[in-house]
């Protein structure tokens, strides 16, 4: 893998966005991924890798993974800057924590495009733009769906994501803000399931023990936990999907399957396939196009009506 050493590094100080590191016309692109646990993150990384490998003569992608640690990820960005890559895709672990890393990139004239989450700073200045998956909105949509399906009356168990993660906070907030509009919708119990099926199953089991038939809906911050909750409900002799409505976020294949099996009601897509959008945005930037501060990615909603249709393309 000789090509990975950055050839012709001193390629002259280009203007912002200009390639300083074009080894034989190739652009070196750094991707800073926050972590790689779970299908969603893997799908996201694969999407970006896949897009880069479509044009092997044009892009040379370097992926760094931060093991879910903001400090580590900030360091990774700095490492990419030190290598003088031509552009950075940053999937930040959380909003705060990247001011300095972004400043470093800026001073080295390396454009940064934020992927899937925001980081504090100004688009067009601290970074190019955000390709956003709106986690708060995902929570809202889940709540909306539930409000309609339950006629604004539900006793909800919330299985939240890993403590301290910003998605956990966002998906919780969006959901709560929305159900606050419906006085008869209550979160009767909320507990972390660590985005983990097995853990969620155990937690759900205990909550069922405590609340039993009171529970009319489960909102899980991701599909894996929803699947764990379904197992717990079935083990307790309850009928997920009918007795208890199951709503979650992600749209992974096994969740669509569960919807088809009637055990789950709906999952809000959190589209991980940022690859095409990211590169297209970068090209636009290099072409000098004006970019909006936020480029949204489309999140679909999967339920009984469309699950079969998208099953095969789901990750």
């Amino acid at each position, binding site marked *: 893998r000789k090509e990975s050493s950055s050839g012709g590094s001193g390629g002259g100080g280009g203007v912002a966005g200009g390639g300083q590191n074009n080894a034989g016309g190739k652009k070196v692109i750094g991707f800073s991924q926050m972590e790689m646990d779970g299908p969603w993150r*893997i799908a996201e990384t694969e999407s970006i890798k896949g897009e880069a490998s479509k044009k092997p003569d044009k892009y040379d992608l370097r992926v760094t993974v931060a093991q879910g640690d903001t400090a580590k990820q900030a360091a990774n960005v700095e490492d990419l800057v030190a290598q003088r890559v031509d552009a950075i895709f940053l999937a930040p672990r959380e909003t705060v924590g990247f001011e300095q890393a972004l400043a470093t990139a800026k001073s080295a004239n390396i454009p940064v495009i934020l992927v899937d989450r925001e980081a504090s700073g100004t688009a067009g200045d601290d970074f190019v733009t955000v390709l956003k998956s709106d986690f708060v909105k995902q929570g809202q949509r889940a709540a909306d769906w539930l409000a309609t399906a339950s006629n604004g009356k539900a006793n909800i168990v919330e299985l939240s994501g890993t403590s301290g993660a910003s998605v956990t906070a966002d998906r919780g907030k969006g959901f709560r803000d929305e159900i606050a509009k419906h006085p008869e919708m209550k979160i009767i119990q909320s*507990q*972390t399931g660590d985005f983990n*099926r*097995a853990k969620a199953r155990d937690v759900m*089991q*205990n909550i069922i*023990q405590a609340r039993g038939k009171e529970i009319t809906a489960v909102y899980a911050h991701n599909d*894996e936990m929803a699947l764990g909750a379904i197992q717990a409900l079935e083990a307790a002799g309850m009928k997920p999907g009918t007795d208890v409505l199951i709503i979650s976020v992600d749209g992974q294949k096994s969740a669509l399957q569960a919807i088809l099996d009637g055990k789950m009601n709906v999952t809000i897509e959190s589209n991980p396939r940022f690859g095409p959008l990211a590169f297209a945005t970068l090209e636009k930037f290099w072409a000098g196009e004006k970019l909006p501060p936020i480029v949204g990615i489309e999140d679909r909603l999967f339920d009984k009506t469309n699950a079969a249709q998208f099953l095969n393309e789901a990750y």
Partner: protein
Amino acid sequence: MQNATPANSSGGSTAAGASRRAGARSLLADYGPTYGALAALILLVLANAVFTPNFADVNNFRNILLQVAPTVLVAVGMTLVIATGGIDLSVGSVMAIAAALAATNLERGLLPAVLLGLAAALAVGILNGALISGFRIQPIIVTLALLITGRGVAQVISRGGQIILIDNQNFMSLGKGFVGPVPTSVVVMLLVVAVAIFVMRATSFGRYVVAVGGNESAARLAGVKVHRTKIMVYALSGLLAGMAGLIEAAKAEASDATKVGLYIELDAIAAVVVGGTPLTGGRVTVVGTLIGALIMQVITTSFNMLGIGFAWSLVLKAAIILVAVYIQRPKVA
């Protein structure tokens, strides 16, 4: 042939008499449960029975056992390791390796998949033991290295960190099946605990474990095969972690290489020390470990049932660990 010098006769008879009297007591004192931990468990259960609605319920007790099973399996192995004065941080990663291997090989049939998972777990355990005993490197470092490496290996096996779904009914029965009214994994857990108690109480291997933990060079000079004993405990720890990994996967109907067994080493160590096996080695109580694990599980369960945040259960667990160990610490002059 005067065999008795003056001082001889006096001491002998008292010793012999007393030795018989204390025979039964020793069963409990040396290898049995520690009453402090047992009392704490009973207290916790009673308090919950009163204050936590629906806690005192057969179903709930079954759930508690079901949930604690993987931790207990790992903790039993950890108990043996700790009794030799070692520690095994790699157990969580070993669980992930076993789960991943079994899950990715289920199409070859149940038995090959399960055996493959367990064999890999055993192999990692043996590797731990061989490195620790052969190269004489501190257990905490060897097993830390395998904790890091092992997790990576499990993810590689899982086709790059994918969640591997399981749809083999027979395999899943390990996590969901019942033997009579008792869940299969609980039966496995109880069997393992029973065998471990028997091994530690009644076999020479059990004594070698504590002898090695108590004074390694003395044990060696008394003919104890120290290397073999150490390799055995790490191998057992690996094997039991492997079993726990399979049960976790069967329960979740999926193997998630990044999540299976994450941080379980800390739960297991906590269970062991709360149960009364000191980290210095040389003493052991398997029943204590079971009790320790149950204490931790009851806290988790009741906090889940009461809807108290996970953060607070951490604080309570920390307090329990400290208090339990404080009560059971050896008396010093």
